[in-house]
């Protein structure tokens, strides 16, 4: 598990960037943007794939909202990137997460990758590699709840919940009720931790 999400009670140097209500509103806004950009209603609906851990429940929430606003059923799943990471050699082996592809598959569809925080962009690169192994989407888009900057690869998100300028020494923690005990986005002062 990424250290940036350890527990809800942090040290004193911690700021709440988004409250539970903010998270809900942000996801709803992103849902509207996905509907608009992927022309839901007139074309094949996009396939939402969350990147575990927290991208997966986030994708499910986003799909639920889109269905609520557009009345279109959205195929939703998760894609594990552990085996495609570029830092495997520098870390102890991690347990695998779940890959669950919707029955529709991804061939010829628009795939929206969903993650909680966009940072270096390396996770997304790994996800693109993992995705290539399971099919050939018509297009791939990226939705993130928080973009904290410091990209190390030429990757940008199509849908951003909130842009947060951060220092590399800070840590952005997204808490989701499905995994943690509540919804919130926190900014913490931390050392070199939280890099991913």
């Amino acid at each position, binding site marked *: 598990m990424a250290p940036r999400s350890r527990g809800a009670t942090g040290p004193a140097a911690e700021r709440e960037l988004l409250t539970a209500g903010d998270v809900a509103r942000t996801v709803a806004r992103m849902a509207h943007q996905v509907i608009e950009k992927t022309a839901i209603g007139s074309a094949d609906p996009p396939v939402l794939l969350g990147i575990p851990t927290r991208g997966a429940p986030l994708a499910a929430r986003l799909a639920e909202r889109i269905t609520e606003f557009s009345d279109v059923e959205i195929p939703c799943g998760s894609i594990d990137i552990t*085996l495609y990471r570029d830092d*495997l050699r520098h*870390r*102890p*082996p991690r*347990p*695998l997460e779940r890959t669950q592809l919707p029955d529709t598959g991804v061939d010829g569809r628009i795939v929206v990758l969903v993650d909680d925080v966009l940072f270096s962009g390396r996770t997304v690169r790994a996800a693109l590699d993992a995705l290539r192994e399971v099919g050939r989407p018509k297009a791939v888009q990226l939705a993130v709840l928080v973009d904290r900057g410091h990209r190390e690869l030429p990757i940008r998100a199509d849908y951003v919940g909130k842009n947060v300028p951060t220092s590399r020494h800070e840590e952005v923690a997204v808490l989701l009720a499905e995994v943690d005990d509540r919804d919130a986005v926190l900014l913490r002062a931390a050392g070199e931790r939280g890099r991913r």
Partner: protein
Amino acid sequence: MKHLLATEGLDAATATQVLDTADGLKRTLLGREVRKLPTLRGRTVITVFYENSTRTRVSFELAGKWMSADVVNVSAGGSSVGKGESLRDTALTLSAAGADCVIIRHPASGAAHRLADWLEGTSTSVINAGDGMHEHPTQALLDAATLRERLGSLDGRRVAIVGDVLHSRVARSNVHLLTALGVEVVIVAPPTLLPAGIDAWPVTVSHELDAELPSVDAVMMLRVQAERMHGGFFPSAREYSISYGLSEGRAALLPDHAVVLHPGPMLRGMEIASSVADAPSAAITEQVRNGVHVRMAVLYHLLAGEEARE
């Protein structure tokens, strides 16, 4: 984890982690056209087999290749071993040549441990693919994976291991691993095929197969290892088969959900009837299939991370 030499001493948490990874890998590769993961790209795995093997060697080779490692196979026949090179020199040579992992099968018990000792101070990992009558840890892991898949859980289950326990590294590895995972193990064998010191094993011992079958969740039939037998361990093959073979009639004593395992190679008609080996309750081909995923998981846990390799 740097080496995998034995299941004795392997704790339940680590074993479960490997089984979970194997499970994940199996799910990941299921239904894929291209069974290739980039995970171990640039890693070199060398198998050294001083004993015959089909499934274990092939399974390790596929496991390495499916994870993009470079796999080199050395067989004792075609190598400098035939010129009289010692195991130690062979090991140091392979390590110096750049092996990240050496997978060894050897007729001498303890060979893998010796190898690991000699490679102390290098970054080369050692996997025991069967050493004499000692251990065969990946076989036990794949058996556990197969049982867990078929039965849903292992804790509190009862498994009978039947036959030539004396010569069986598979039995030894399974006893340690399964008991660590909460399985109750019953050993069923003629007294001549029980190892000395079996009293110290965490198992119950029985000589009556028929009495045990109705109460087990799985039965593991062992091959009678004629190549390691140089004396009269039982009167005749026929008599062994009658007392300890899993015949069709005997298999009917098993509960409906029970699983039949055999590590292979099977001697049909000796320790297991052909019809039993091919029945739906037999998980023998699943064992082979799971073997690749389990070995991928082991390679992943040994080779993927640098930090974990002290």
